[in-house]
């Protein structure tokens, strides 16, 4: 009865600014979401498809995951990617935090130039950065026959270079909300410069550092173009490997490998968002 009553009750008219309740707007958003997600969802779905041709659904299988996981070169590439991303993240967070504090805290000569230079790796087209590293490592004769993981050095250096300015940007925007009086209060209570930094400034920076780390890890894991120019035959990363597979054909195996990476990113993002929101509430509390 109540269901019927609800159905019979006239729908409340739409107020002028309730754009989201308008049908054309909902249709539009729905179509955009379809546009964004349909390709990815079919990609994931067809990684379970029991057919090599990958067009028509033939039944559920995990065969291609088995294949992908048993593909030694693919797994090696994945390991390389994760190693590089981990190393690049740690270094980028340190460098980015230092750079952020430098730009936020101090007045110094040529500061405008320093700020500009720090923003450059963000805006320079990837391809230009890629060729610059190609030329640079060739010019200095970076050794290519080092044992693992040292052979990943060139790629890691390149990744740190384009990741740490992003970290610096995120951390610096976090620092602008810092109340300098907190630090002065710590010093007033007897803390040294270093203690004040550790006990007051660093906790405030933490959400920024976590966000920056997440960003750096994802950027590094996702990068194809710059890595493409710095990697050698023995230092294939996951995107570079997938690229070489994709160039030839659309196969369920590539779908499976891609799905693995998507799942990995989603897990990492969820963890980071969780940490971040918890940190956010903690920092709001004090």
């Amino acid at each position, binding site marked *: 009865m109540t269901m019927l009553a609800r159905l019979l009750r006239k729908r409340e008219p739409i107020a002028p600014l309730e754009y989201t309740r308008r049908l054309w707007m909902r249709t539009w958003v729905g179509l955009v979401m379809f546009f*964004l997600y349909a390709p990815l969802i079919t990609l994931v779905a067809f990684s379970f498809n029991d057919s090599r041709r990958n067009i028509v659904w033939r039944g559920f299988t995990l065969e291609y995951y088995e294949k992908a996981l048993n593909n030694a070169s693919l797994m090696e590439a994945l390991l390389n990617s994760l190693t590089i991303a981990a190393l690049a993240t740690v270094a980028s967070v340190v460098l*980015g935090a*230092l750079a952020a504090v430098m730009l936020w805290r101090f007045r110094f000569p040529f500061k405008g130039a320093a700020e500009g230079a720090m923003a450059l790796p963000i*805006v320079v087209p990837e391809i*230009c950065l890629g060729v610059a590293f190609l030329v640079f490592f060739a010019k200095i004769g970076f050794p290519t026959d080092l044992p693992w993981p040292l052979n990943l050095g060139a790629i890691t250096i390149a990744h*740190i270079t384009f990741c740490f300015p992003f970290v610096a940007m995120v951390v610096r925007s976090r620092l602008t909300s810092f109340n300098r009086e907190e630090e002065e209060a710590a010093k007033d209570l007897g803390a040294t410069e270093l203690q004040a930094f550790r006990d007051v400034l660093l906790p405030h920076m933490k959400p920024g550092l976590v966000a920056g780390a997440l960003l750096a890890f994802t950027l590094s894991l996702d990068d*194809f173009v710059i890595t493409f120019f710095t990697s050698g035959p023995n230092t294939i990363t996951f995107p570079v490997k997938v690229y070489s597979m994709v160039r030839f054909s659309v196969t369920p195996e590539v779908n499976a490998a891609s799905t693995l990476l998507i799942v990995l990113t989603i897990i990492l993002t969820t963890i980071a968002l969780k940490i971040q929101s918890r940190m956010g509430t903690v920092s709001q509390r004090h």
Partner: protein
Amino acid sequence: MESWRTAKGMFAAVATVPTLWLIGFFIVPLGIVWLYSFGTNASLTEIEISGTFSNYSRALDPLYLGILWKSILVAAATTVICIVVGFPVALAIVFSSNKWKPWLLLAIMLPFWTNLLIRTYALIAVLRREGYANQSLGWLHDNLGGLLPLVGLPAPGAYEPLELLYNNFAVIFGLVYVHLPFMVLPLYAALDRLDKSLIEASLDLGAGHFRTLLAIVAPLAAPGIISGVIITFVPALGAYLTPDLLGGPDSQMIANVIERQFKRANDWPFGAALSFILMYATFIAIAFQAMKSRQAEARQ
């Protein structure tokens, strides 16, 4: 903010490492490329910095100028489509209920976290001859085609798959797919800051929704729109992967030409010149944005 002189030790502690890193692994590599752009191939492995401008003049060759111009057009088309598609989405997020807003934002951002290569690959599967787009169109064709004789039209022939991949359409489609979140997020940020009563005031004074959009919302959200435009245009201009995987032989963009000079043609000086031309184009776009958004802010 304090002067570096008052805390020299602290300043040195924070400034040294990032500065050296930036110089050593960013300025120097770019500097070498810049020098190479004025060089000539002396032998197979040696490049002589001869101070020549011949690499740049070669870039003015109609072939390369055409590709550069085409890259700009493709990036511009991508940007325009992204605005048209993204603006209503940003508006919908701004005016959505508090329950929905974070989920809609997440839904827009999630593809951004997904690997570019994988997203491009997903598009290949959709757009290729035997892909899902053609399959769906074929299904519609076969099922609805049968209805045509009922309304007096001749029955259509067998479905001919559309060539959706390896052409300019595919490149722009792919660039829009990849860059849409970049456009929506700054638009959202700009619209969210807007005082809603300004929109109401405009409606109250007799303007319709479209008029309000043009006369009130667009000028006030201008800084956000401009930064959305640049944040979409710049990476689209330098895009390598999308035209490489989705484009045909005639839809190569400037980044693909640069890649060819370094990896295949082995003409580093020319590639260096091209990559600096691309960089200058990027800087011009960014300078334009800085100028425009400063004007827009001054107007408010």
